[in-house]
């Protein structure tokens, strides 16, 4: 099922789409967050930031940005 990063319940996710401007996409890209990559959601504040693990690092992403990242929940 496709869902935004901020709403995803599962820990294991795959990035499907990034609905952001060039700037945001570039920023995410350089940190290893791009379409098709597997990520792990570690922490989520309701209507607040999420913390994900990608490659071997943890990254905090604000709510609005997390709303623009579409993911698929994996099992």
């Amino acid at each position, binding site marked *: 099922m496709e869902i935004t990063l901020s709403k995803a319940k599962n820990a294991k996710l795959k990035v499907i789409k990034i609905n952001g401007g*060039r*700037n945001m996409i*570039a*920023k995410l*890209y*350089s*940190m*290893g967050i*791009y*379409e*098709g*990559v597997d990520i792990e959601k*570690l*922490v989520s*504040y309701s*209507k*607040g*930031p999420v*913390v994900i693990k*990608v*490659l*071997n*690092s*943890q*990254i*905090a*992403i*604000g*709510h*609005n*940005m997390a709303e623009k990242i579409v993911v698929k929940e994996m099992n």
Partner: protein
Amino acid sequence: MKIILTGNPNVGKSVVFSYLTGYTAISSNYPGTTVDILGGKTKLAGIDLEVVDVPGVYSLSGESVADRVADEIIKKGDYDLIINVLDANNLERNLFFAFELIEMKRPMIFLVNKCDIAKNRGINIDFKKLEELLGVKVIPIVATAGIGFDLLNNEFKNIVKNINDYIPKISVPDDKLDKWKMIGDVSSKCETIVHKHPTFLEKLEVITTTPVTAVPFAFILIILSFYFIRFIGEGLINYILDPFFNNFYMPIVEKLYSVISPGILRELLFGKSITPLEGFSVLTTGLYVPFVVVLPYIIAFYIVIGILEDIGYLPRLSVILDKFSHRIGLHGYGSIPFILGLGCKVPGIFSLRILETKREKLIAASLMFLSAPCMPQTAMIFAILSKYPVKWTFLFFIFLFSVGVLGAFLFNKIVKGEAQDLFVEIPPYHRPVLKNLLFKLNLRTKNFIKDAVPFVMGGIFFINILDVMNFFDMISKVFAPILNSVFSLPAKISPIIILGFLKKDVSITLLTPFNLGLRETLVSSYFLVTYLPCLASIFVLFKELGKKITVSVIAFNFVFSMFFSWLFSNILLAMGVQ
């Protein structure tokens, strides 16, 4: 030969820089410690080198405002060699930037740092293989322990002779997806990860990021820090510095006082009272304030901050504060300039660079000036309120903070634009290294002694001149109406308020000789802390953010401060506090 030190944020560039040059670059466990370019000199393999510590970036694409400084230097190309530092714990992510460098076809070597932590976390890297795949010389190091620098030194013997051998020859795919794919290939070939039981620090990471436990943890930690700073500060004052001052130093001053005949010289040196804090003598109060009242708190504060910085707590705190910060137009990382500003506004203002937009910087600066007194001010508030129950100190800070938040909230409403989103790497916790803690403490304490102490003494000397020439009465008459009717404060403190502008950091303790009541102390301290930023911070603010923002922050804060001093005074009066 000119070298630039590059790499992702937080990989340890500044530690490498300090090790090489012996210069003092602050390093802490959060991305964005270095926000400016720092240059130094060193000698490796007998060659004189000029080294530049570049702020960390994730990519050369140059889209983000904050990364521009680094971008410019790297692209300018007026250097002979790039030393790119990578974090062994994050090799794959670090390789993205490394690949961008490789594409530039300049001489370079890679230092893979933090090998000690990687080992503990079960990460094994085959450095020979990595070197082969990248076509770039790779040297593993542990910068904090100075391990691996001998290899670097050896390498330089060859570098000087054959610098062109250090230009990488592999070709890197243009497309970003292909680039990540190639990186995946490389790292799977030379990196193996053995699963280990989570270390204590890894468990602590989970506790301090999961909302249910992280929020109470942060709360308790802040309260504990507050008490710890007071405890250490007071301990140093009561058991060491004050006795030392009174038993060893004062007798000398008293001797001196008795041999100088009464007259203008004696008044200039000793003021109207020789007892510290009762008059404005440079030789007593002038030394007592900076060294006995303030210095202990500076030390205590920077011990706490240093530990939090080096463990890597600040980025996690910024996650916790993110939701709250959005209400005032900031994202959680805005807490870093704020926290640094609690020490001194100058580094606080510099670190505003980690925020992206002018709007955020404006709000963060205003919040900082309205609600984050620098440590000398805090120390003096502690000192001047120490004869009352501690709840008044708390009340003071709560009032200060609430008003600052209200100010930021209003700014957020007034200034057009939207809050940016938090987007920051959260580094793993590190065990703090004593050497680095002491190094930073020493640097920051020295800065205080060098930059602030002469000013404090000069300020007190100046006030003393006004005092002995009886200028106080004149100034007081002019300001009496405002102070009396608006703030219900005695007119006699008006020279302190005027001087507060020039010498903000001493102004609060200078209230001591006036024997004020509790309310008078609280209100005048509040006013002194908030009504204008100190000269040094105005200067830096101007340099960093330009005239328009500086003027609007100052004007806004002045109005706010006037109003809330008035309100504070009336609330206290209504509570029956004099």
